[in-house]
């Protein structure tokens, strides 16, 4: 079952699983789902001790949005480790090329084909996205929004910029590396620094909680945006020059 991984066009000539096996798998999964549904109905309305806990401690958290409070104060270890996971994935997909560390982070190039609609659209869209992302970050303290949403929006802006073809990002540049780690670094530094006042890692002093959370969120937004753009860069067809070489190689046979 796990050996028949196939890619692209080669998928056709490899046979799928026999119908009997598929039927058994479907039956087993249907039974499991039925059991889960029955368990859900049996379970009934659950007691939710966390609701009152969050509500009663919200004033101490430094923010008014309960989700942001949970993410960055009550369960900040989760978020810290999540930023670490993102960094690990970024390291895994990052193109390993030490020669490129001298190249600038953002370089301007001439696109092979221009899309005038996209370019004209981006002139309006990019500033709007950056402002919206800043708004989402700021408003995350009181209303829905926060670091992840803002970072994702910024990353969307970066991907659109890449697609227009006038710029390329080099994530081996030192500025880019700084962007990739700043979120985790600031998070860890703040988490360690509050030991001085409260004695526990990541337990912010109440008076400073709001501002500390905002600092962490700004850094996390930048890192999340940079890492998401890096993921797209790593998966995208290589830069125009490399692509051209690929074309020549394909024509050879």
């Amino acid at each position, binding site marked *: 079952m796990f050996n028949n991984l196939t*890619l*692209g*066009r080669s*998928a056709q000539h490899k046979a799928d699983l026999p119908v009997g096996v598929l039927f058994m798998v479907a039956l087993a999964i249907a039974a499991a789902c039925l059991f889960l549904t029955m368990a859900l109905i049996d379970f009934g309305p659950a007691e939710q001790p966390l609701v009152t806990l969050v509500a009663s401690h919200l004033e101490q958290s430094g923010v008014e*949005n309960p*989700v*942001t409070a949970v993410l960055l104060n009550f369960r900040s270890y989760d978020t810290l480790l999540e930023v670490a996971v993102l960094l690990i994935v970024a390291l895994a997909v990052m193109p390993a090329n030490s020669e490129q560390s001298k190249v600038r982070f953002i370089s301007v190039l001439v696109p092979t084909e221009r899309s005038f609609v996209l370019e004209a659209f981006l002139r309006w869209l990019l500033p709007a996205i950056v402002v919206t992302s800043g708004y*989402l970050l700021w408003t995350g303290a009181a209303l*829905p*929004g*926060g670091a*992840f*949403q803002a970072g*994702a*929006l910024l*990353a*969307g802006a970066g*991907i659109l910029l890449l697609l227009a073809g006038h710029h390329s990002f080099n994530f081996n540049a030192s500025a880019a590396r700084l962007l990739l780690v700043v979120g985790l670094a600031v998070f860890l530094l703040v988490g360690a620094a509050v030991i001085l006042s409260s004695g526990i890692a990541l337990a912010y002093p109440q008076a400073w909680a709001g501002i500390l959370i905002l600092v962490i969120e700004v850094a996390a937004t930048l890192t999340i945006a940079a890492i*998401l753009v890096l*993921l*797209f860069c790593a*998966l*995208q*067809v290589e830069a125009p020059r490399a692509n051209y070489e690929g074309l020549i190689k394909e024509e050879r046979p």
Partner: protein
Amino acid sequence: MTGSELVIDLLLGCGTVVTAVLCLTAKDMFQAILLFISMGLLVTLAWVRLGAWDVAIAEAAIGAGLTGALLIATRRQLNC
């Protein structure tokens, strides 16, 4: 829960499941990716119905938008 609300919830839920099934049975990879993005947007509406606004914003931006971009970029590289 009033009748019209129930209809909206049922439509959203069934729509999500049907889109998921269509996504997995689609012959063309590009079609499958587009259906996956549509499913993400339907799920976003479901989060709004359930009152999870933060999750809805994140799902629209990351779950539907960025995942779709990553998938399409990979598909272009694989030519499948």
